[in-house]
């Protein structure tokens, strides 16, 4: 490995540690400033970061642009909502049910969608997500259009998510675990197959890989990460609503990934932080905040071609280089 490459690798670690370390300090800073507002905002950020990291596994490493991953957030949220509506407050049962339903849905929908590629894949994933969106609206006994209020947050026996701080650190813990696991995954046999399919699927088949099987597995893993994000989101808002599955929510996830840096493990976290904080600040200024946010995103994507995370890594590497060789 050349020194320049090593410095870049180091810079990646530095940026990731600063980003996650900063997130770990949020509850303390929030209690110093006073008020639960910041911890609620940042719990939302961490949850969407988790969902974006999940989607990025297939979008960034498999070039499979799913425009329907909010559907899996919805499945996680409704698993908590519906079970708690029927008096099942155990987080473990909710988790098992959410993952089981999510896995079955992801396998079936994945098998259909993965027979297509490119624009067709985008459209068919969107179509399935819209089906689930309207299915949720039609569930009159579970609030229909208005959504479903959740009486109590999930109870995991050894701990409950009732406290905002516990919920925040649970979400952050899941995010960090997911980042570590994905970091291992992309350099494993499985990750190499996935990246090979992104690059040249026809060649992968000619080498002897049953590519559909691997892409489907990646799709299911990515969906299940979003299911868990949905469970956490329902716990945060104590509410599950059809709007969680709206196509705009799927679009937000893609924006976070592009903004943060596609095909990097930590990039989507930076993207989620940037997008949601920008949204928060701008919506405080004006009700027409989308008019400002849109051009701001375009500007960031055009100037930092490899995303915010890629830009930060580049800067840190250059900074380290300048300090290593003072001239």
């Amino acid at each position: 490995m050349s020194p320049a490459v090593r410095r870049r690798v180091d810079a990646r670690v530095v940026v990731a540690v600063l980003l996650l370390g900063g997130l770990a300090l949020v509850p303390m800073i929030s209690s110093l400033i006073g008020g639960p507002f910041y911890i609620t905002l940042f719990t939302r950020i961490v949850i969407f970061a988790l969902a974006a990291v999940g989607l990025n596994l297939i979008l960034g490493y498999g070039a499979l642009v799913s425009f329907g991953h909010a559907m899996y957030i919805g499945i996680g949220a409704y698993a908590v909502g519906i079970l708690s509506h029927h008096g099942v407050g155990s987080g473990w049962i909710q988790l098992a049910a959410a993952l089981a339903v999510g896995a079955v849905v992801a396998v079936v929908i994945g098998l259909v969608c993965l027979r297509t590629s490119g624009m067709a894949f985008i459209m068919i994933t969107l179509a399935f997500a819209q089906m689930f969106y309207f299915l949720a609206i039609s569930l009159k006994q579970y609030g229909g259009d208005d959504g479903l209020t959740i009486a109590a947050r999930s109870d995991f026996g050894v701990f409950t998510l009732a406290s905002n701080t516990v919920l925040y650190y649970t979400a952050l813990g899941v995010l960090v675990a997911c980042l570590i696991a994905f970091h291992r995954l992309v350099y494993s046999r499985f990750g190499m197959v996935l990246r090979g399919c992104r690059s040249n699927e026809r060649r992968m088949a000619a080498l002897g890989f049953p590519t559909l099987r691997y892409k489907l597995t990646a799709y299911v893993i990515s969906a299940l990460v979003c299911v868990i994000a949905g469970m956490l989101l329902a716990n945060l808002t104590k509410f599950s609503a059809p709007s969680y599955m709206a196509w705009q929510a799927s679009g937000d996830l893609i924006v976070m990934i592009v903004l943060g840096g596609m095909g990097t493990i930590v990039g989507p976290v930076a993207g989620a932080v940037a997008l949601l904080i920008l949204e928060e600040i701008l919506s405080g200024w004006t009700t027409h905040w989308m008019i400002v946010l849109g051009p701001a995103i375009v500007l960031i994507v055009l100037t930092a071609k490899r995303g915010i995370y890629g830009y930060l890594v580049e800067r840190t590497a250059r900074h380290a280089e300048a300090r290593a060789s003072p001239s």
Partner: protein
Amino acid sequence: MTSLLATVGLVKRFGGLTATDGVDLTVEAGEVHAVIGPNGAGKTTLINQLSGEIAPDAGRILLDGRDITGEPVYRRALMGIGRSYQITSVFPEFSVLDNVVLAVQAHAGHSFSFWRPLSAEAALIERARTALAQSGLAARLATPVAALAHGERRQLEMAMTLATSPRLLLLDEPMAGMSLAESERLVTLLATLKGRYGILLVEHDMDAVFKLADRISVLVYGRVIACGDPAAIRANPEVRAAYLGDQDAAVAA
């Protein structure tokens, strides 16, 4: 004795065009069988049917006497059919070594391994190094493929195909775009492979074809108009008229 590869009455039509018209062809183990023919004769279409990328409209494909007409591409690859592409088909964002490791990996059990880094799989890497040494790329292991010259990419393409330990090689114009020195080197490599693999060679470079082939089939408008050893093909008047034409002088020289 059953042939390594046999096609029986293979037909493929694209609309009104018959790209493969009742082709019966065999490749014996250890033999180089070259398929030549003018542009548009259906050579690549034939290879794509053998590798499974397109399905024939009629006829059967047999590998060791076993019907594989309905098998998908990846299963044929696992059964021992390795192919190279006319347009270089490698993974540009990986290193040279990783490209070949991926080829080895395809034939070393399943890849549902999510935690252990590929760089720790010593057995795979060792086999990939051997395949690269064989193809003359040993010095370029860590080079990103994007930085390779055209000829080196063709060599890598070959190394990947060999790393899948095939029994039958389908080579689609392996010399395309190579310099004279590079194609000479490839001819030498293919000559050393002869006898160990059954090879179906599609190639425009007539020098290479006549040097390497045990048998030659001439394909014109999807139909095999002649099949025989190089001397017989060279002497065949129908072939001379249909294809060899002015190149005949160069071949004879």
